């Protein structure tokens, strides 16, 4: 097990380097730079001043080596868009908020999704099943920013039950972003749980358990669910890094000061240090999540062996 994990982590380091090179090259290949010229063009000297200030006057390979050497020491540079803060400070300020929102959403959305999926599978083709499937499909098909705007118009503007947005001064501020963020993953969790469980219900060992006279609750809880878990974990595991790094639309719609908006804005602003740091963060998170899901298989299903 230790050897396996060490091997995977070494592989992750290789992926880390590869991602950094690809992100760096793509970033610099995109036209435009950190200088803004919506009105008149900057005189060449002024533009060079900006590039020099951002360290972009060096040849590309020197910039890359400098960046990676600093990154390995934990120094990701200063954000071009927020020059009084280092990238690490910006991420340190905003990521915990995204983790909080995303973490609560994971627990509530995935938890309720799995629960609804179990109920729907137990009562297949009942009204409950159809209602649950309808809600799941709604969550999957309607984009989260449409849901967000709809929630704002109904609950904040018309009914005035919930605050428009913000974070930190009212516990009700988490309700709408959690719903907007969570409906999609809840839909996925419901669908996959239901499908996987329905499949497991057709297995011989389930028929045997029922024939032995076991109560239906025991059949489901002790035998069916554990076997249904493998595909569920495979699909839901990668949703977690998605949720805890925030999403731009939900966070900006509800004014949650999280990390989500930087994924889009740093690219539009050509904030190179931020772009690089975020790409590396994502690579590390996804690599770790896949490693953890692989390890979890062995816990759930003893037949699965790590090679």
């Amino acid at each position, binding site marked *: 097990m230790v050897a396996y994990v060490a091997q995977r982590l070494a592989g992750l380091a290789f992926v880390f380097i590869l991602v950094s090179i690809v992100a760096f090259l793509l970033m610099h290949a995109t036209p435009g*730079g950190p200088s803004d010229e919506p009105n008149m063009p900057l005189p060449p000297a*002024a533009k060079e*001043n900006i590039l020099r200030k951002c360290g972009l006057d060096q040849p590309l390979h020197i910039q890359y080596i400098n960046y990676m050497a600093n990154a390995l020491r934990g120094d990701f540079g200063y954000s071009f868009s927020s020059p009084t803060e280092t990238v690490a400070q910006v991420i340190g300020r905003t990521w915990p908020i995204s983790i909080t929102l995303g973490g609560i959403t994971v627990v509530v959305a995935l938890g309720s999704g799995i629960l609804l999926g179990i109920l729907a599978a137990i009562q297949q083709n009942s009204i409950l099943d159809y209602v649950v499937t309808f809600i799941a499909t709604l969550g999957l098909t309607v984009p989260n920013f449409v849901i967000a705007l709809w929630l*704002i118009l109904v609950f904040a503007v018309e009914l005035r039950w919930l605050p428009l947005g913000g974070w930190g001064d009212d516990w009700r501020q988490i309700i709408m972003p959690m719903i907007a963020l969570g409906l999609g993953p809840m839909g996925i969790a419901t669908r996959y749980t239901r499908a996987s469980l329905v499949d497991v219900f057709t297995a011989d060992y389930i028929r045997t358990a029922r024939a032995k006279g076991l109560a239906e609750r025991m059949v489901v809880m002790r035998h069916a669910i554990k076997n249904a878990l493998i595909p569920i974990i495979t699909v839901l595991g990668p949703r977690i890094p998605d949720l805890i790094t925030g999403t731009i639309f939900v966070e900006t719609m509800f004014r949650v000061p999280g990390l989500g908006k930087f994924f889009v804005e740093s690219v539009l602003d050509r904030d190179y240090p931020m772009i690089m740091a975020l790409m590396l963060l994502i690579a590390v998170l996804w690599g770790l999540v896949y490693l953890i899901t692989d390890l979890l298989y062995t816990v759930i299903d003893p037949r699965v062996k790590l090679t």
Partner: protein
Amino acid sequence: MDQDTRSRLTRRAFLRAAAIGVGSAALAACGGGGATAPTAPPATIPPPTTAPTLAPVQPTPPPTAAPAPTAAPASAVTNSLGVTLPANAAPLEQQAFVVYFDITADFTSPNQMETIYKSGGFGSITNLTGDTLVRLNKDFQVQPAAALSWSSDETGKVWTFNLDPNLVWSDGTPVTAEDFVATFRYAADPTHAWDFAWYYSAPGAIKNWDKCVAGELPLDQLGVTAKDKHTLVIESETPAPFLPAKLVYSEVLSAAKLKEFGSGLYTADPAKTISCGPYLLKEFKPGERVVFEINPTYKGTNRPRIERVIQIAARPEAMFAGYQAGEVDRVTGEQLQTADNEIIARDPELSRQVRLTAADFRTDYLFFDCQNPPFNDVRVRQAFSHIIDRDTLIKSIITPTQGIPAYSFLMPGFPASNSEGLKNIQRYDPERGRALLKEAGYEGGKGFPKLTLWLRNEPQIRQALAAAIAAEITQEYGIEVEVSNKEFKTFMDALNAKPTQIQFGMVSYGIDFLDPSNMLGVWLSTGRHNWFNKTYDEMVLKAAEMTDQEARIKIFQDAERLLCEEAPAVFIYHRTVADIYKPYVVGECFEPNIAGFAGLQWPGFTSMSDSLQTLYISNEVTKYRKGTPR
């Protein structure tokens, strides 16, 4: 387990339910559709189409001091600066102006000499913690501000500004000419790399500005010096009678703080910053909140009525919803979406809350790469100038509150604008256009290359405009045009590349300062478009230097005529910006200005404008706001 005993949805039951559902949906669609369809175009304030041209920019300040607010009976409300508010003012704790700024916009500092472009995007309120040398009134006339008076010598290149000796920093130290010298040196400093560094170049360049920015001369060679504690001397490279108007961008930084912190970013930290302006920075959290509070130590002439300015970060798509929920006092026209404008137009109560401004006199236009075929042929460009059916486009796509037709570059109300006189040159005339194309050898569009019309990250309204124009070109001229909405920086990078990479595009320009040399300067050979005309350059640069107002306006108008005739651009429309304000936001700044606009004019609620002196919250606010704004 017997499955039949569990509840099942039978096929019959399902079909029954589906039929009821579909029937209900059909009834709802039929019933709701007809009643609310708008019949007439929205009845709102018709924007002025041809306004008298403004009084030309004065080279010397008007004789009186800053105008006092119109006399009103004394009320009980006096703010923390000792300013007495009109009788209908709300209590002091309600004198808070609450607005939105774009949550995704960069916001590194609220001081313009630190950054212009990273200051919270459209609609944000900035530049309140320092006075500028001059400011504007609602008729766009230059008024004294930190500089109480000024004059130039016989050469017109040396300007002397007499500073207000009462101005003081909030830490008790006096504001002196040295602060302004340090501010301008900081703006030119190559290590600071000011993002607006093109501004004090020609026309009307400060002496040695370009060389200092390029690092070729030390900063003490910059043509901004202190003659004594309260006298500032600014030299220009060439005579520039409009230099005072240009100096509206001069929000003073503290020389002591610049030295202590090494940069102007101290202005973004409430713990470090000091203010000599009407407000103090209380909170600065980009992406969340920015709050200013009145500066009780302010000794300048721009004495405000409002106690607090509270800005909340929000997404433009959600701003109007927040306005309807009563969270903010206004949403600017640039922040309103097309759907929001449709809701406003259909609601008489909301329509009454709309206040129209000329904003930054922005003109949208098509432009060409004039150095390469096919647009190097002036007949082809002129043909394109006859293809825009502006009246129909305004009526059906832009809507009359959002714009007026543009046949020339300078919007009515801007100095030297001559909309009536130039109206005929780029008139809608497809017949004439076809004849010109035939002359140029492209009869019926044969042999004309397929075009891609580049847009600069335009919202839906201008994408629709571009699509309509492209369709008209194809229909009338037989030329294939594809519309491509590019990302902002990709577009600007391609436009400014030498040689330019954009053959055919649509873009806009809004003013930086109130002089024709600014707008017309866009078309100089040194400007951003690929058109080089020596005659035009000579006319604009010559007029820029002249002091005789009538003569220079005549030359500017001749230059604009040449611009319309040579058609490196086809002018489409001038934007009128419809802001929406709650009825309790009042003040003399909202009375109609010289061009007939009755909204908060450019540059808005900032030290650069005297609107601070008159805007306040009336006692109607209790009907709308619950509690006091935080």
